[in-house]
Every structure is written in structure tokens, then in C-alpha cells.
């Protein structure tokens, strides 16, 4: 009995604490989603300065960054930023290169069957695939590149479309990891299988991306990316890393701890 009375006095406060933390988390998410668009407008690199007004380390690095890039496009920090930034920036670039866009489209068309062959349920993959293809088709059908880019921007700021793009890219990334699991298993910490890792870290929404996600996403879409790292480290310049190594990157992303934005040379 002694046990029980102890439990009943502890449990409510325990639950309340958790509820409070969750409620606060939702509140923060709400504030972020109300103040930061999913994908923002293009801004000059110098717009970063205001975020680091008194921070010599960052200001120095922004100077270095602005010698390499002219513009930045911010994305919402919701854990999906890599996937959202990467697919937006990739499609935006491809719209300038009709042939490459068509090849990309063809590869995307075939991707669903590949996922189903890997064991994904057709019924559930289909929905995300359909929206993904709808977006590609809608921007691809427009002959005027500026119109196409405007439509792309519009669709990526429609929560329904934008999030489905992220889900499908997460599925493609998961598929890539599982297809080449012999290779990727070396990079997974702990005694998790690649499939476990995909279920825990890749397929769930709002889960942040690491190197392994980036490598697999680039392999899945066959589209290279340069990630420019900017952190509080001591060197005066930003660090660049291409995925896959040695590629000519189509997409350029800025990484600051925990977040990716799009860069424009």
C-alpha cells in the first residue's frame, strides 16, 4: 500500500511536467511556423550580418562567404530543412536546364516501383509519389522559366505539397540506404541495422539530417550538393564539402549548426 500512495502522489506531477514540456514545444513550433516561411525569398548574403551583430567569428566568416556567394534563401528550421532546401534548390536549378530536368523527371517516374520492390507498401508510397510527380509536372510543363520558378516557390510554401515533397524524398533516401546497406552500415553507430536507422532517423518527419542522409539523398536523386559549413570554429573561412566527393555540385547549401539554407553563387 505504501508503494501505491507514493505512486499516486508522484505521478500527477510527472505527467504535468511532461505535458508542460510538450505544450511548450508545440508553442515554439507554432511561433516558428508563423514567423518563418517554409522557403523564403532570395536575400543578399549581407542579411546574415544582423543575426551576428557582435560576433567577430561569424562576421569574419560571413565576409568569406560573401566572396563566394551572392544570395541566400532561408528555409524554416523544422528538422526537415535539409530535405526541403535540397529538393527546392535542385529543382530550381534544373528548371534552367531542360534536358537535365527531363532526365530527372524520368528517373523520378521510375522511383516508385523501385521503392515497392524494396518492400515499401505500394498503397502508402503512392500518395507521396503522386504529389511529388504532380509538382514536377506542374513546374516542368511551364515553358517560361520565371513562371516555373514562381510556381515552384508557391508550391513549396503550400504546407500540403511541401511536406509531401519532404516525405517522398525521405522515402527515396531510406530506399537508397537500404539498397546499399552493405556500404552504409559502416556509418551507423550502435548495433542498429540500416532498416532500423531508416525507421528512426530518416523516414520520420522533423528528424534532422546528418552526413549519411545527405550522401544517400544525393545518390538517390543523382544530384550533387556542396555544403558550406559555418560555425564558431577558429578558422577565418567557411569550410566546403561536396557530396559525393569530387562532383560538380548543382545545389549549394549553407550549414549552420542544426540548420540548412540555400546559397546562390
Amino acid at each position, binding site marked *: 500500500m505504501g508503494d501505491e500512495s507514493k*505512486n499516486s502522489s508522484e505521478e500527477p506531477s510527472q505527467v504535468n511536467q*511532461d505535458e508542460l514540456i*510538450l505544450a511548450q514545444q508545440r508553442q515554439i513550433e507554432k511561433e516558428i511556423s508563423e514567423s518563418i516561411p517554409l522557403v523564403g525569398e532570395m536575400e543578399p548574403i549581407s542579411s546574415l550580418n544582423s543575426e551576428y551583430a557582435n560576433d567577430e567569428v561569424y562576421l569574419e566568416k560571413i565576409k568569406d562567404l560573401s566572396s563566394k556567394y551572392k544570395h541566400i534563401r532561408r528555409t524554416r528550421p523544422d*528538422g526537415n530543412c535539409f530535405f526541403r532546401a535540397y529538393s527546392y534548390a535542385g529543382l530550381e536549378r534544373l528548371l534552367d536546364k531542360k534536358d537535365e530536368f527531363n532526365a530527372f523527371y524520368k528517373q523520378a517516374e521510375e522511383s516508385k516501383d523501385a521503392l515497392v520492390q524494396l518492400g*515499401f*507498401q505500394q*498503397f*502508402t*508510397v503512392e*500518395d*507521396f509519389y503522386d*504529389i511529388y510527380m504532380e509538382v514536377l509536372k506542374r513546374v516542368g510543363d511551364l515553358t517560361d522559366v520565371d513562371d516555373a520558378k514562381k510556381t515552384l516557390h508557391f508550391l513549396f510554401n*503550400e504546407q*500540403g*505539397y511541401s*511536406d*509531401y515533397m519532404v*516525405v517522398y524524398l525521405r*522515402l527515396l533516401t531510406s530506399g537508397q540506404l537500404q539498397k546499399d546497406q552493405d556500404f552504409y552500415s559502416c556509418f551507423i553507430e550502435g548495433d542498429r541495422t540500416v532498416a*532500423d536507422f531508416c*525507421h*528512426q*532517423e530518416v*523516414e*520520420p*518527419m*522533423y*528528424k534532422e539530417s546528418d552526413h549519411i542522409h545527405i550522401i544517400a539523398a544525393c545518390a538517390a536523386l543523382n544530384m550533387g550538393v556542396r555544403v558550406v559549413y559555418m560555425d564558431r570554429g577558429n578558422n577565418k573561412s567557411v569550410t566546403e564539402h561536396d557530396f559525393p566527393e569530387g562532383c560538380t555540385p548543382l545545389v549549394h547549401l549553407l550549414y549552420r549548426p542544426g540548420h540548412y539554407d540555400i546559397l546562390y553563387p
Partner: protein
Amino acid sequence: MSEPQSALLLRKQLAELNKNPVEGFSAGLIDDNDIYRWEVLIIGPPDTLYEGGFFKCHLYFPKEYPLRPPKMKFVTEIWHPNIDKNGDVCISILHEPGDDKFGYEKASERWLPVHTVETILISVISMLADPNDESPANVDAAKEWREMYGEFKRKVARCVRKSQEEC
């Protein structure tokens, strides 16, 4: 999008479940005008204590489905370690991504956008057969299940009988 993607997806799933029913449960809507609130009848799985029971449950889907999970509640009274005394089902696949509320679960078991009503129900039916007493939502039921199995069985049997009468 004239109708949210979530509504389309749920409509599609409902049509599919009506066309090709899955063994172990039947699904419909609480109110035909509201695609976000489902009523499901679970048939107590054979060779378990719940065999012969008919358990009515409600599923409440958020507008963000399938990015966020639905909530599930047993309307029929049921005694089970992972269903709290209000009927709320507490299994990890129905927990929000990144939701560490109880701190016990591995992320592996969290909600994924590829889950459907069918995969949820399959998990719940398997939970009926095989409770997880490491993370009980009904502490008393979990304790009985571990330490006073006879008493546990008697309470479940009473729920099963009651569910048959209500049906």
C-alpha cells in the same frame, strides 16, 4: 488543393478497407460528414484472453495526418496494460515524431507517415495479444498481468462478456 491532402488520403483508405476488408476489424466513420473521426470494431484476436470480444474504438486524425499520428480510444470498456482507464491507447507508433513524453521508447517505434489505419490496427491487435508491460498506461492492469494473472484474466473476461452484451 481544394480538400486537404489528409482528407483525400483518409477517404482513399476508407474506400480500400470497404472494398478489401482486413481480418480482425471493420472500419467506418463516426459521422459520415467527418472523414477525420473513425469508428472501428476490433474483434478480440483468437487464442488470446480477448477472443470473442467486440471492441469499439474511435480514431481521431489530425489535419496534418499522415505527418502526425491519430489518437485512438477504446469506447468499449477494456482492461489492458497499454490502454489507460479512459480507453486511450498508448502505443509508441501513435506517438508524435520526436515525442519523448515517457522517455522509455526507442525512436524506432514512433509514428511514420507511411502508417495507415490498417497498419495501426494490426499493431493494436498485436498489442492485445502481447502487452508491453515496460510502459504501462494502466499500471494496475500491468501489475496484475505480471503478478496476479488470475485476477487479470477475470477482469478481461468480464470486459469480453460486457462487450458481447453491448454489441
